[in-house]
């Protein structure tokens, strides 16, 4: 594999695209223009090969078999954990918990905190969360009697940090916020959020699902308590993700699910739980998915996050400029710090109509509320058209999007 710095200087999306077989296909007779990367990213051949090699070569259950296949599978799975640890600069490998994805990670923490919270305590979410980072906390509040507070946002789609600082108090026990908003693309000031929460003794969970494909987070530097991601948004497979938790928290939290793998000793009188990370990994995990997650990180790091960030910034800047040339087009989410998502509407046209026409042109975008209804309520709109970009998208594809939107507009007006 080529040295990271070399690739960074020779970044070529046309070459990178060759790694993604799906990008060659046609949709409705047109070459696919895939701009729904915020929902799920596409998978490079290197990751597909890893999946095939696993099932062809060493498919076995892990952590128990004495036989060679089981050993090989265990080694590969634990190697993937190490890769995740290194990627996110996590202090200890036992702080990396494999999950089925971001939602699983959030629910694990929310359920665990039920035993720590009481009436009068407060938990805080931001106004721009995905439903998966709202509903589990509402359920937590219902169980414990704690109150849910919301960090408001301004019309640009930025959190109003002054309000956040005012809302924080000794009653605040937990703060949840996404690193990047899936609906608006805003990069939230999580460093400031974490530092301020810690000053009042609150723990912080950051939902990194939308950020992970664009920003390489250094979790030790952030000093965050929990960080969750899904592999399928960063070139990995679906059904696998990571929960990072500080060891002290993971030790305190009760297990989420009971079953095999997570126990030390079982009798009918009492069960003692396994050490971290296995305490939170009941049952046979998504072994192949975990290994492929590691391969996806290898792939992205071989391109290099500096190069990815730089390229994507340029692409989004270009797409924003071009889209704004269309009469009546309004972009939602105009934060100073944003990444890879452009949410928009055209005056008088339902986003669904635009999405339907774009699909006929082979252009995949998302339409609707993007599982973030409170944001749509904030702007008083039924939804948006969302184009979300990845490092394998090109300016030519942006041009096709712009042409497609123009065509949809002329048909629908």
């Amino acid at each position, binding site marked *: 594999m080529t040295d990271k710095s070399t690739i960074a200087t020779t970044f070529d999306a046309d070459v990178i695209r060759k790694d993604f077989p799906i990008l060659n296909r046609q949709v*409705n007779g047109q070459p696919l223009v895939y701009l729904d990367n915020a929902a799920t990213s596409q998978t490079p051949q290197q990751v597909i090969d890893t999946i095939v090699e696993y099932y062809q070569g060493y498919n076995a259950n892990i952590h128990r078999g004495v036989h060679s296949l089981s050993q090989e599978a265990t080694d590969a799975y634990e190697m993937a954990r190490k890769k995740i640890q290194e990627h996110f600069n996590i202090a200890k490998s036992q702080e990396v918990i494999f999950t089925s994805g971001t939602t699983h990670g959030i629910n694990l923490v929310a359920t665990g905190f039920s035993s720590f919270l009481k009436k009068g305590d407060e938990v805080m979410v931001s106004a721009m969360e995905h439903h998966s980072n709202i509903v589990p906390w509402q359920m937590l509040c219902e169980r414990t009697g704690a109150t849910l507070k919301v960090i408001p946002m301004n019309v640009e789609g930025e959190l109003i940090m002054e309000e956040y600082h005012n809302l924080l108090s000794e009653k605040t026990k937990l703060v949840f916020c996404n690193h990047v908003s899936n609906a608006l693309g805003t990069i939230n000031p999580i460093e400031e959020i974490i530092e301020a929460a810690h000053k009042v003794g609150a723990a912080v969970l950051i939902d990194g699902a939308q950020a992970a494909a664009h920003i390489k987070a250094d979790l030790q530097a952030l000093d965050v308590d929990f960080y969750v991601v899904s592999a399928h948004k960063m070139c990995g497979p679906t059904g696998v993700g990571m929960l990072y938790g500080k060891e002290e928290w993971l030790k305190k939290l009760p297990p989420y699910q009971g079953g095999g793998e997570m126990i030390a000793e079982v009798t009918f009188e009492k069960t003692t739980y396994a050490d971290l990370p296995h305490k939170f990994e009941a049952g046979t995990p998504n072994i192949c998915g975990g290994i492929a997650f590691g391969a996806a990180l290898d792939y992205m790091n071989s391109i290099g996050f500096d190069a990815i960030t730089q390229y994507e910034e340029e692409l989004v800047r270009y797409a924003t400029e071009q889209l704004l040339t269309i009469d009546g087009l309004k972009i939602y989410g105009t934060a100073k710090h944003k990444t890879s998502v452009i949410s928009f509407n055209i005056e008088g*046209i*339902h986003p*669904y*109509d635009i*999405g*339907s*026409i774009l*699909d*006929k042109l082979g252009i995949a975008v998302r*339409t*609707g509320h993007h599982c973030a209804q409170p944001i749509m309520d904030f702007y008083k709109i*039924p*939804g948006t058209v969302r184009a979300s970009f990845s490092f394998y998208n090109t300016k030519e594809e942006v041009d096709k999007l712009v042409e497609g939107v123009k065509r949809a507009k002329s*048909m*629908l007006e």
Partner: protein
Amino acid sequence: MTIQEIQEEIIDEFSMFDDWMQRYEYMIELGKSLPLIEEQYKTDDNLIKGCQSKVWVHAELDGDKLVFTADSDAIITKGIIAILIRAFSNQKPQDIIDADTGFIDEIGLKEHLSPTRANGLVSMVKQLKLYAVAYQTQLN
């Protein structure tokens, strides 16, 4: 005309189109000619669940026939409901209940629509038939 005859007429019209654009443009036109629901009937009760865009349908008896009016906030969806209403409105409830809906496939609507929208279309047909069942009971 019977429901069957109207459906055949719609199939005929759609068979003239060579590509999806003409088909969509026609649907958009049909949407614009939709017998609009009165504002007072745009209630949550008349909203069809399962569509990404909002679709309201109102039904009332005119003699022994059921008359549908509808609206949607999305124009293509409006076209789809307009086609359905053309096929089923002004018909006896029992005929609506018994009617075959295969023409939706034949005019290439279902195949060309995204799964979420196809679900919406299924919900729309279901809702029209439910109204027919309700009014048939009333007529009995």
